[in-house]
């Protein structure tokens, strides 16, 4: 039997109190967005409201909650996702707590991440999923990390943490970036041998190879979904095969956003303000052509020159990004933010999963300045009216697609 798709509630924890003319007056929502815009009075209780939305998802029955790390922007108010994760270990009892992920090159000593994840795994009784990300874009400006060096630092840090959880300590780690004489962390994680490791990637074959070789889970860090998502699954399956492994849905996850209402019209009406706040403000400096995005390009040179040359040859710098979305029909085409009735949302999610059979669907419900009651309502409708159908359909479909593969794998293992 193959598990049906696992459904997670994702939160960015964006800043919701920007002035109405933010887009006209400010160049970016990232790195340089002036923090005088932070309204201390109106922001009281904000992080707790967001934490409670995640705890509500756990109450409803979601398979997990997803956190992420961002710095000095209005897009994500979680510079330390581990602090939010610590709160969730106390507020929730059931679902996985996925931290996707700690940005390893930003740490002077990534051993600290091994220690904190181990603490969280103990505090949550083994519910932590350990995500790691390189943070080679805007974060390099926030934390003064060389983009060119960040990938090498990242993979060394991942290896240090993996060893810290699996090798008997104390041992010496002969790292280039993080040489350590005594690696011997206490506590050790609750899960054995260690929490699942998830790593985001987009187009780099090197990243896929590392993920495949080490048995990690691949999170496709692309915002838009269509044919390309299916191709990404195929690419990852090919890399796994080249390493004597087999693709199964549990090895891969994607991020989508949704708003579920009773009808398509109600859903649009209730989500309009939050979605456009998210697209125009939160994505400014990240996924919009207007202004200056710092996520990928010549100023954040983290890929080798030959790969950049290929990118130059095969890309058009004027192609609109998600944040450039003009209207609802435009949004519809992006396959990134799905808005509608339970029927519509079920159908559109299945359209993606038909071509991209992934095991982990990470779903953003709260967008921009969406009111608490709307975010909760959308989570509730999704869980009660969309999730059961997604579970049933994917359970059946994935078993048809992959059962032989998994049986074969088990037999080989014997």
């Amino acid at each position, binding site marked *: 039997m193959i598990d049906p798709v696992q459904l997670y509630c994702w939160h960015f924890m964006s800043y919701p109190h920007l002035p109405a003319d933010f887009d006209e007056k400010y160049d970016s929502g990232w790195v340089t967005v002036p923090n005088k815009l932070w309204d201390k009075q109106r922001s009281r209780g904000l992080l707790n409201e967001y934490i409670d939305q995640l705890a509500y998802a756990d109450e409803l029955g979601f398979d997990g909650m997803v956190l992420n790390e961002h710095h000095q922007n209005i897009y994500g108010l979680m510079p330390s996702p581990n602090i939010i994760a610590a709160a969730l270990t106390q507020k929730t009892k059931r679902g996985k707590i996925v931290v996707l992920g700690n940005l390893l090159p930003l740490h002077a000593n990534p051993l600290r991440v091994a220690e904190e994840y181990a603490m969280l795994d103990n505090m949550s009784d083994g519910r932590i999923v350990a995500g790691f990300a390189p943070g080679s874009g805007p974060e390099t400006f926030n934390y003064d990390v060389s983009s060119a060096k960040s990938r090498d630092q990242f993979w060394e840090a991942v290896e240090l943490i993996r060893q810290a959880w699996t090798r008997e300590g104390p041992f010496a780690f002969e790292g*280039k970036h993080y040489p350590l004489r005594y690696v011997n962390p206490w506590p050790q994680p609750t899960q054995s041998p260690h929490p699942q490791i998830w790593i985001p990637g987009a187009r780099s074959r090197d990243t896929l190879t590392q993920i495949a070789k080490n048995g990690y889970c691949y999170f496709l860090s692309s915002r838009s979904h269509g044919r390309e998502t299916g191709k990404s699954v195929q690419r990852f399956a090919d890399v796994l095969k080249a390493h004597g492994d087999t693709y199964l849905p549990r090895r891969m996850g994607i991020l989508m956003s949704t708003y579920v209402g009773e009808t398509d019209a109600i859903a649009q009406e209730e989500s309009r303000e939050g979605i456009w706040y998210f697209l125009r403000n939160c994505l400014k400096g990240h996924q919009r052509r207007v202004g200056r995005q710092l996520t990928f390009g010549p*100023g954040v040179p983290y890929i080798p020159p030959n790969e950049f040359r290929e990118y130059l040859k095969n890309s058009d710098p004027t192609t609109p990004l998600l944040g450039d979305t003009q209207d609802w029909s435009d949004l519809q085409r992006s396959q990134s933010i799905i808005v509608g009735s339970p029927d519509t949302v079920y159908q559109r999610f299945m359209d993606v999963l038909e071509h991209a059979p992934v095991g982990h669907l990470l779903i953003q419900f709260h967008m921009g300045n969406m009111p608490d009651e709307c975010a909760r309502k959308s989570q509730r409708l999704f869980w009660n009216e969309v999730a059961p159908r997604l579970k049933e359909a994917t359970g059946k479909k994935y078993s048809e697609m992959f059962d032989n593969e998994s049986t074969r794998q088990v037999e080989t293992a014997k």
Partner: protein
Amino acid sequence: MTSAVLEKTNLKMVETNGRSISYLEKGTGAPTVYLHGFADVHGVAGDFLPFHDKLASATRLIAPAHPGCSGTADLSEGYGPDDAVFHYLEFFDAMGLKEFNLIGQSAGGWIAAEIAVRYPERVKKLGLIGATGLFVSGEHIADIFMHTQPERGIDYATLREMLFSSADAPLARRYYPNGRGDLDEETRRYEMIRFASFVGFKPPYLYNRSLVSRLHRAKMPAAVVWGEHDRFVPRAHGEAYAAGLSGAGKLKVIAGAGNAAQMEAPDAVADIMLDLLKK
């Protein structure tokens, strides 16, 4: 990847310690090594520019490309300024250069200064043009990395303004056009910013805090040249170099030019350097 680039230019290659270093060479006489910057040979252009041609009329000009640039092999991942200095020691040895003049522009000027304070006996004359490398409190080297990210995905106006006298200067438009530029030139630009990220992103940006106190070791005749409108490296850095290098005399400011003064005022800058070489 560089074979296509090689065919179009006069690049030569030298092998040293298992790595290849590409360079351009022109002229005869005493050897002068030129370490490039951003808007420069290897930084964007595939061949010598008028400034280099003029220098080559009076000296044997040798311009190697930095690690990872224009076909020069990368250093191992995670390298810094010291590794770049050793990279050039290997190059000097491979080329049989015991003593030589050394000229550097922007980030290349920084590496030139690092070499001069360590091996003053080998560097006969030192020329710096809009050089990074120093820390001057309150006078920060501008964020070339952020400004290398185009606005609206296509607009390099602020980068052009940082490197040239204005965003609309003809040479600025020629080498940093909006939208997609020439594929080879864009690749060279990328390789140069990547080199800069390796040696100079941390601390922000492109300096070594210890360098200023070491400048006194470089007592050779020197010239420090700055574009009047340099918006990349504040002129205070030029003043600090001129004050720290006992052989430098006064800072020479080139009217009408930006950071890439050697491109925008090739004759004026070359004349200063040719005077220096005669000393």
